[in-house]
């Protein structure tokens, strides 16, 4: 499928306008300025409690300036249109407000603002009408955590939190993950009934995995939450949509033209994340300009490409550079760590200041996952195993935050757990999954110590005066 075949999307508008105020301007100055230019009478969001306002509030004025965003929402009154055109002639950018049906892409600052807004409203609701939380029993939760078997990698990355205070409600639902590798074993029982879109880019070979590597990587990134035959949970984004692109032969090799074709296919299918546990050996300096252009275009279209840094090092003596195509600046390069949070001996490092960096690290030693039958499961080592950890967790973040492309990249690196290791080897640190905090309500069975803050009750009791 090519870009030209994509379905045309009709944009609908609400009738309101969004006005982007000049960078650095404050709200009250902007309101005065807009009034002078256009005659519009705007209010500041600061005038509303918790900056929460409704359409009714908006209808009572010409518009409201969102103080934290530097954006004005101008309503649809008939007299507005002429005034709006005068704003466009100043330094302000004016857009019609679009009708939105689902969570779209937000940049990180907007995301944080909106989340902060939501949290403030939730907190106020809790104060006024009480919390609506589930009651959790400490002992039950603790035993639940202990009974859930999961690989060390899933625990270390918080896909399966080890603290009962945290839980992970995300599963990758609605997110498309492409695994470009040796294909997939479609007979594997852990994936029975799971819809999988697949395409082979290897002449003369179907997408059926004759090697096992692709099935292992798919298992880590998108394997099931539970399995009757696996000894522990190994899959991360268990509800994500799986796209298998066979770009490596059953012998485990291929040409990078096929990989570009696979990336193109993934983007055409609107995949959010592309996982590539492969590498071309690099001896000199520099990176592929063609792959960099392709990856930058992928990011711009909301597709994040994640690739293995390579396994060519023999630490501590020899550290090889990040290999092709992970050495491209627009491809996220993944290094490997072991269960003790040491850099894996084989994991390549970022040797150059302007390109070829390791961007993030993930579990890559003794990684248990699915593989082709009859073996069914295996524990393998490699940056190939670290890469699908990041891909699966990227899918969880994409679901949790709505972020895509470069914003998803930033979310992954900004939330990574810092490790006491050189950035050359682990980049931003150990990738971490999004989690939530359990709300635990303890029964109140005692009289509060402070009934009236002005007249505290002495918890010790009155001191008797002893008269001798």
């Amino acid at each position: 499928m090519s870009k030209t075949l994509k379905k045309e999307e009709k944009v609908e508008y609400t009738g309101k306008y969004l006005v982007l105020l000049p960078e650095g301007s404050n709200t009250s100055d902007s309101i005065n300025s807009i009034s002078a230019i256009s005659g519009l009478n705007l209010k500041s969001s600061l005038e509303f409690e918790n900056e929460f306002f409704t359409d009714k509030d908006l209808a009572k004025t010409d518009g409201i300036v969102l103080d934290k965003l530097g954006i004005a929402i101008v309503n649809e009154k008939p007299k507005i249109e002429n005034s709006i055109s005068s704003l466009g002639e100043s330094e302000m950018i004016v857009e019609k407000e679009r009708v939105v049906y689902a969570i779209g892409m937000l940049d990180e600052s907007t995301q944080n603002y909106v989340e902060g807004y939501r949290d403030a409203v939730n907190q106020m609701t809790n104060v006024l009408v009480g919390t609506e939380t589930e009651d959790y029993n400490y002992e039950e939760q603790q035993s639940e955590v202990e009974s859930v078997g999961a690989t060390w990698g899933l625990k270390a990355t918080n896909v399966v939190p080890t603290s009962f205070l945290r839980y992970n409600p995300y599963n990758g639902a609605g997110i498309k993950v492409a695994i470009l590798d040796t294909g997939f074993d479609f007979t594997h029982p852990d994936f029975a009934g799971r819809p999988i879109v697949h395409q082979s880019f290897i002449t003369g070979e179907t997408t059926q995995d004759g090697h096992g590597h692709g099935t292992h990587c798919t298992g880590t990134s998108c394997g099931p939450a539970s399995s009757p035959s696996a000894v522990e949970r190994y899959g991360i984004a268990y509800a994500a949509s799986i796209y298998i692109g066979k770009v490596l032969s059953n012998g485990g090799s291929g040409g990078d033209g096929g990989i570009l074709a696979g990336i193109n296919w993934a983007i055409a299918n609107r995949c959010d994340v592309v996982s590539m546990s492969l590498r071309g050996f690099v001896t000199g300096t520099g990176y592929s300009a063609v792959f960099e252009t392709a990856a930058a275009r992928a990011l711009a279209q909301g597709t994040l490409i994640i690739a293995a840094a390579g396994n060519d090092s023999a630490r501590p003596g020899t550290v090889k550079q990040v290999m092709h195509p992970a050495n491209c600046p627009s491809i996220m390069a993944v290094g490997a760590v072991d269960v003790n949070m040491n850099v894996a001996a084989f994991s390549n490092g970022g040797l150059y200041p302007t390109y070829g960096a390791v961007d993030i690290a993930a579990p890559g030693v003794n990684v248990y996952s699915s593989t082709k039958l009859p073996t069914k499961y295996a524990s393998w080592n490699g940056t190939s195993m670290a890469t699908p950890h990041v891909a699966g967790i990227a899918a969880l973040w994409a679901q949790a935050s709505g972020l895509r492309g470069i914003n998803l990249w930033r979310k992954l690196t900004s939330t990574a757990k810092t490790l006491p290791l050189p950035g050359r080897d682990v980049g931003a640190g150990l990738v971490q999954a999004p989690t939530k905090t359990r709300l635990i309500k303890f029964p109140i069975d005692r009289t509060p110590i402070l009934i009236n803050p002005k007249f505290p009750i002495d918890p010790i009791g009155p001191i008797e005066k002893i008269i001798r």
Partner: protein
Amino acid sequence: MKTKWLISVKDDAMDAVSAELRALKIDNLEKLDSIGVIVIVPGDHKIADIKKIDGVLNVEEERDVSI
């Protein structure tokens, strides 16, 4: 098997570059529209010939990759 060449192309120049390649008798080409790349089997041409085409950003030989 002949080594393929990977050609990255400026935005909106895919059709024009494809036409130029066909004019050079390179008919065995694969257009990857979503990433703006064309993969060709080059025949007797030189990379410099391809780089001269208006709209071409870069030309590289295909490399081997493995797990």
